[in-house]
């Protein structure tokens, strides 16, 4: 009986680990594919460019840094509501850039707010490249 239970536990554990082991999509690769479609002259992403994009405003009131803090490993504060936001950089918050639906939703919303238009794949890739360098 005990052995059976142990086996069952082991099986469940294996299933859980298996489910977690599925790697999140490689967003850099995904954005690179999209960037090539948007611009045949695409050469790659730049963390430096991403850092500048992240820090500055784009003709409207807010920048990425307005809510996600100037240093994206820090806890942010929503510029309008004051709510604290978990860090954006994956080094400080491993949940970031793991779920395509979330990534898609938030780029759509936030680019609309910060730029007044959707971000290009180049811009998304640059920002991600920057976020991945921040420790």
């Amino acid at each position: 009986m005990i052995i059976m239970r142990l086996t069952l536990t082991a099986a469940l554990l294996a299933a859980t680990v298996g489910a977690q082991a599925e790697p999140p999509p490689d967003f850099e690769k995904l954005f690179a594919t999209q960037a090539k479609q948007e611009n045949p002259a695409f050469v790659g992403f730049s963390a430096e460019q991403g850092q500048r994009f992240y820090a500055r405003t784009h003709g409207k009131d807010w920048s990425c840094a307005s809510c996600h803090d100037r240093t994206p490993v820090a806890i942010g504060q929503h510029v309008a509501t004051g709510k604290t936001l978990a860090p954006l950089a994956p080094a400080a918050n491993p949940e970031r850039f793991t779920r395509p639906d979330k990534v898609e939703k938030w780029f759509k919303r936030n680019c609309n707010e910060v730029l007044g238009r959707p971000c290009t794949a180049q811009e998304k890739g640059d920002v991600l490249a920057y976020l991945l360098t921040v420790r």
Partner: protein
Amino acid sequence: MVLLYPSRWWVAALGAMLALAAGGAFADDDVRIRPLNHAAWQQECSACHVAYPPQLLPAASWRAIMNGLDRHFGADAALDPQQRADILRFLETNAGQGRGSMGGKPLLRITETRWFIHEHSEELPASIWSRPSVKSPANCIACHTAADRGDYSEQTLRLPR
């Protein structure tokens, strides 16, 4: 005990009976907001602010808010249609019964309801709202430290510096 915009008449009746039975154990201004559970409401609304209790606005207000999520108080909070409908159903079911309108239009801000103004007018320094840790009256959790669990009781109330 004040029950605001009670979503069912019997909740109000029950509340009144309990208050009587308790012999006035609750102070007059001790608001009891019933904590609610709804996964999508909790997750989506609390991304930018506390998931505000549905009881604090009437159904017409929630409909107006959920119909304008792409321009949500200056922010884009658009949801996919299915999720939007799901959350709106929950809000309508639990909405308050107060009028919550001004000039024939539904109020969109809880902070503009008579209830909110009344509850927050006493004993509060006017400067409280502009403190960096508070920033906005929309930031319930700055003072109502358990607001994320739907608890707005006096016991969890702490005014930050």
